C-alpha cells in the first residue's frame, strides 16, 4: 500500500518536442481510487504509462510511497496493470496467465496454487482455469486480466480503459465489481477512462485532463456541481450542461440586483452569484451561463424567470425524457422532464431555470467565476 506523488511531470514527443503531458502535479493518497478522465489524446494514458514505467519521463518526478521511481524498470515498481485489450498470454492457460507473475518471483508451488485459486474464486473464474484465453468471452478475459493483477498483491493498481472493449451491460456489471475489488483489496487504484460515467461512479477523486493539462482534481460531486471551467462542465455529465451566451446587466441602476440578458430573455441572478460577478467586474460584460438539464423545470415548479423555447427533439431515457428546445441560441437547450411528457414539434414550451444552481463562466477563457 502506498500513495503516489507526481511532481511537475512532463512528456514531450518527437523532434518538435510536442508536449503531451504538461506540468502534471498530483498527490494520490494511499488506498484512493483515482480516475483520470478526458477526451482521447489528452495525455491520461501517457501519464499512467509513465507511472507504470512503460514510457520515459521527459521532466519531473514520480514517487511511489517514498521511493523515487523515475529510473526504476516496471517490474521493480511493485505495480500491476490491466490493459484495454486484456493482454492475456495466448499460449498459456488461464491458470498460467494468473500464475505468470508469481512464477517469475519464484514463489513456492503450493503458494502459487493457493493465490491463483483464491483470486479465481474472488473473480468467479474457477471453472475456466484450464482453458486458453481464446476459449473465453470478453468479460471472462477481463476477469483473468484482473486476476493476474490481484495475485501479485501490488502497491498500486493501474487500469488503462479496462472496460471499453466490453458491451454496455457487462461494463456496468464489471464497474461494480471493480469498485467492490477496491473495497476488499484496500489498495491505491489509478483508473484511466474516457467515459465520464465510469469516472463519476467509481472515483474517490477525478482528474479531468485536456491537452495534457489537468483541468480539475476533485470529488465527483464537486467536479459535477462546481466545474472549474466550461470544458469540465461539458465533459462531465450526460446530457451535457447547457451553455448560454449572454450579458450581465443591472436590473435597476444602483440597486445591486443583476440580470442575465440574451436577445430573447432576461434571467435574475441570485445575490451570491451577483456578488461574485461584481467582484470580477462583469457588469455590462459578456459571460457564459451554465445550467444542467435537471436544473430546468417546466413552468409552475418555480416562480419567476420564464424562458420560451420551441420544441425540436426529445430523447426518452426510461425514467426521464430530455427535451431539446430552440431558445434562439446556437445550440438547443436541453431540459429534463418526466418520461410521460409529450408535446408537438415546434410547440412553444415555457420553462423555468433554477438560477440558484446556475454557473457563470468567463465568455473568452471559459473559467468559472469564484471568490
Amino acid at each position, binding site marked *: 500500500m502506498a500513495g503516489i506523488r507526481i511532481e511537475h511531470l512532463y512528456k514531450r514527443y518527437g523532434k518538435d518536442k510536442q508536449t503531451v503531458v504538461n506540468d502534471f502535479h498530483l498527490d494520490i493518497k494511499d488506498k484512493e481510487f483515482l480516475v483520470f478522465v478526458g477526451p482521447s489524446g489528452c495525455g491520461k494514458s501517457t501519464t499512467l504509462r509513465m507511472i507504470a514505467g512503460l514510457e520515459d519521463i521527459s521532466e519531473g518526478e514520480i514517487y511511489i510511497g517514498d521511493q523515487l521511481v523515475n529510473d526504476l524498470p*516496471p517490474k521493480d515498481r511493485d505495480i500491476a496493470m490491466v490493459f484495454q485489450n486484456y493482454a492475456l498470454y495466448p499460449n498459456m492457460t488461464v491458470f498460467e496467465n494468473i500464475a505468470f507473475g508469481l512464477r517469475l518471483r519464484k514463489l513456492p508451488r503450493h503458494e502459487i496454487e493457493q493465490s491463483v485459486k483464491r483470486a479465481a474464486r474472488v473473480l468467479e473464474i474457477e471453472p475456466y482455469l484450464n482453458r486458453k484465453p481464446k476459449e473465453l468471452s*470478453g468479460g471472462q478475459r477481463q476477469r483473468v486480466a484482473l486476476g493476474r493483477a490481484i495475485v501479485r498483491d501490488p502497491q498500486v493498481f493501474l487500469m488503462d480503459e479496462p472496460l471499453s472493449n466490453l458491451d454496455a451491460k457487462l461494463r456496468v456489471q464489471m464497474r461494480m465489481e471493480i469498485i467492490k475489488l477496491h473495497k476488499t483489496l484496500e489498495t491505491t487504484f489509478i483508473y484511466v477512462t474516457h467515459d465520464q460515467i465510469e469516472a463519476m461512479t467509481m472515483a474517490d477523486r477525478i482528474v479531468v485532463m485536456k491537452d495534457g493539462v489537468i483541468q480539475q482534481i476533485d470529488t465527483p460531486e464537486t467536479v459535477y456541481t462546481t466545474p472549474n471551467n466550461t470544458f469540465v462542465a461539458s465533459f462531465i455529465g450526460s446530457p451535457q450542461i447547457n451553455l448560454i451566451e449572454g450579458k450581465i446587466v443591472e436590473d435597476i441602476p444602483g440597486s445591486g440586483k443583476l440580470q442575465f440578458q440574451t436577445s430573447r430573455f432576461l434571467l435574475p441572478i441570485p445575490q451570491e452569484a451577483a456578488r461574485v460577478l461584481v467582484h470580477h467586474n462583469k457588469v455590462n460584460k459578456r459571460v457564459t451561463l451554465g445550467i444542467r438539464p435537471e436544473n430546468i423545470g417546466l413552468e409552475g415548479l418555480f416562480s419567476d424567470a420564464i424562458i420560451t423555447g420551441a420544441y425540436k427533439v426529445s430523447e426518452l431515457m426510461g425514467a426521464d425524457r430530455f427535451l431539446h428546445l430552440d431558445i434562439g441560441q446556437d445550440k438547443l437547450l436541453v431540459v429534463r422532464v418526466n418520461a410521460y411528457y409529450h408535446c408537438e414539434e415546434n410547440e412553444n414550451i415555457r420553462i423555468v431555470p433554477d438560477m440558484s444552481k446556475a454557473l457563470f463562466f468567463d465568455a473568452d477563457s471559459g473559467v468559472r467565476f469564484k471568490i
Partner: protein
Amino acid sequence: MVQRLLGLRWKGSRLQAMDGFQKLLTLLMIVMSVFMLLPIVYIFNHAFKPYHELFVYPPAFFVREPSFQNMNELLSVTSRSTVPMIRYLFNSVFISGLAVVFVTGVSALCAFPISKHKFPGAKLAFSTILLTLMFAPEVIQIPRYLVVSNLGIMNSYFGHLLPMLAMPIGVFLLKQFIDQIPDALLEAARIDGANEFFVFIRIVIPVCMPAIATVAILAFQNSWGNVETSSLFMLDDEMKSFAFFLSTLTNNLAGNVAMQGAAAVASLIMFVPNLIVFIILQGKVIATMAHSGIK
C-alpha cells in the same frame, strides 16, 4: 470433408452451392494443385521403375512393375565409395538439425529487437537485411569463402553452418509476424516481472510459432539440399554432405544410360525428408495467429 473440398457448405439439411466465381476459383485451384503434385508423384513412381520402364517411349507416368532394382544399384554404387554412405547421411542430418535450430534462433533474436525495440538505426538495419535478399548466391561465394577460410573453420561442421546462419528471408518473415504482437502483451509481461530474455522466450517465441515453423522448414530445405558448403569449404570427403554425394553420383548423367536408376532413387531420398519435415510442421504453419488473448 468432400463437401468442404468442393467448396460446398451444408446449411441445415440444404446443400448450399457456391456462386459461379467461387466455382471457377475452386476449379482453378484444383487444377493447379494437381499440377503441383505431378512432379512429386513422378519422383515416387520413377524411383521404383525397372530399367526397361525408365527408358520406355513415350514416357510412362506411373510405374507398372515396381521393383527395388534401382535401390540395389544405388547401394552397390555407394558400397564401392571410400566413405560409407551412412557418414554422408549423418553429416547431412546433423548439419540440417543444427541449421534448423540455429537459423530460427538467430532469425528470431534478430527480428525481435528490430520489431519491438526502438533504437537508432533499426530501420537502416532492417533495410540492409532486406537488401541482402537481392544478391544472387554466386555473387557472395568468393567473399564467403574468404570469411570461412580466414576464420579457420574450413573442413569443420561450423564451416557448413556459418554460411547458412544468416537467413534474411527468415528475419523478414519473423519481423513481420512479431510486428503483429500487440505491445500490451510484452508490457504486461514486463510489469509481471519478466526481463527481456524471458519475454522473448516465454511470450514472443510461443506466439510466433507459425512463423518459426515456416522459417524452420525453409532452413531445413536450404541446408538439406545445400552442396555449396561441401564443394567449397570441405576438403575431406567424410565432411561432405549427402546432397553433395548424390550430386557427384548423378553428375554427367545426361545422355547416359548407366546409373539412371540410382539417380532416380537418389532424388527420392533427397526429397522425402523435406516432405516429412513439412508434414510435421505444417500443423503449426497453418495454425492461425494465436491472437486470442487479445481483443
